[in-house]
């Protein structure tokens, strides 16, 4: 898959400032396991995922998962509330670009996204060759704006 744009710079598209080349990445499309009840999605904080854009159904986006369901996120500017608890079955995704808040359109614009929108996890970069290799998302330090938490499964959901 090709990755364009600068929202994940400098993690992806490292040459964004100097060239027009786009990174190509290998995406793991395997559906997340259904077995694990908690963390049902099998997604982890820090993982880089590809998902359908909530605002444009024909567009895909690449972002990093900042918070999982139940976590409390200190939001950034365009978001209407100062803090947000990520609901059940949702994740909070953000871009990487350090320059400013407006560099990336992410959960601060459209809120937490349903896990069902996630297409797959970015596992490796294969182009350009110079920096080809596995994506080391584990190196991500975690965000100081996230308080880890738990949420109840919405039991009402099963009544109807």
């Amino acid at each position, binding site marked *: 898959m090709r990755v364009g744009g600068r929202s994940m710079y400098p993690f992806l598209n490292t040459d964004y400032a100097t060239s027009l080349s786009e990174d190509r990445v290998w995406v793991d499309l395997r559906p997340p396991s*259904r077995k694990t009840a908690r963390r049902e*999605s099998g997604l982890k904080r820090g993982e880089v995922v590809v998902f359908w*854009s909530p605002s*444009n*159904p024909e567009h895909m986006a690449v972002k990093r998962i900042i918070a999982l369901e139940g976590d409390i996120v200190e939001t950034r500017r365009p978001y209407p509330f100062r803090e947000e608890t990520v609901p059940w*079955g949702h994740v909070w995704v953000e871009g990487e670009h350090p320059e400013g808040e407006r560099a990336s359109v992410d959960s601060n614009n459209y809120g937490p996204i*349903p896990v*069902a929108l996630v297409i797959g996890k970015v596992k490796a970069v294969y182009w350009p060759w110079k920096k080809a290799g596995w994506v080391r998302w584990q190196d991500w330090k975690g965000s100081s704006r996230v308080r880890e938490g738990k949420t109840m499964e919405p039991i009402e*959901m099963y009544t*109807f």
Partner: protein
Amino acid sequence: MPSSKPLLTHLRTNALTALKALCFIHFFREYAFDIRSTYGPSMLPTISVQSDRILIAKPFRRGRGITTGDIVSIRHPLLPSEGAVKRVVGMGGDFVLRDTPASLDTPHSSLDSGTMMIQVPEGHCWLIGDNVEASRDSRFYGPVPLAMVKGKVVARIKPWGRVEWVENSLTGRVDGG
């Protein structure tokens, strides 16, 4: 063994045919039509509580060509491994009632009794079950991204006595506005 070669060829031909059939079925179900069984009271009386089978048209996936009044099959916003079937009440930009219509909760009360009109964000749709009182829908989990739409429900095919096309009962009234 002279006879083993034809047997191997035979097996390989059969395996190839089976593979092709599987691929064809997969693509047909992914991009043309899919048949799913449903449960739950939320779409009564259009779809009954148990063991109905519905025909889903996949060219409408990701909300392509969906209009107000269509019944869509979606991935569930809260339960990622499940699905749901609901009726589209508003598309992006439309104004919808956020809560249950007042007349259902408390008869004779007017609109301003705690209910609110909101605008559906671009690229989303507002979904409500036909059985308004027994449905968990957009009133519970908010507007649903169109990318979650798997397809449009075009027919009910299982209880043999009730086989029919699923009609869009809202189009006539909405087109004027």
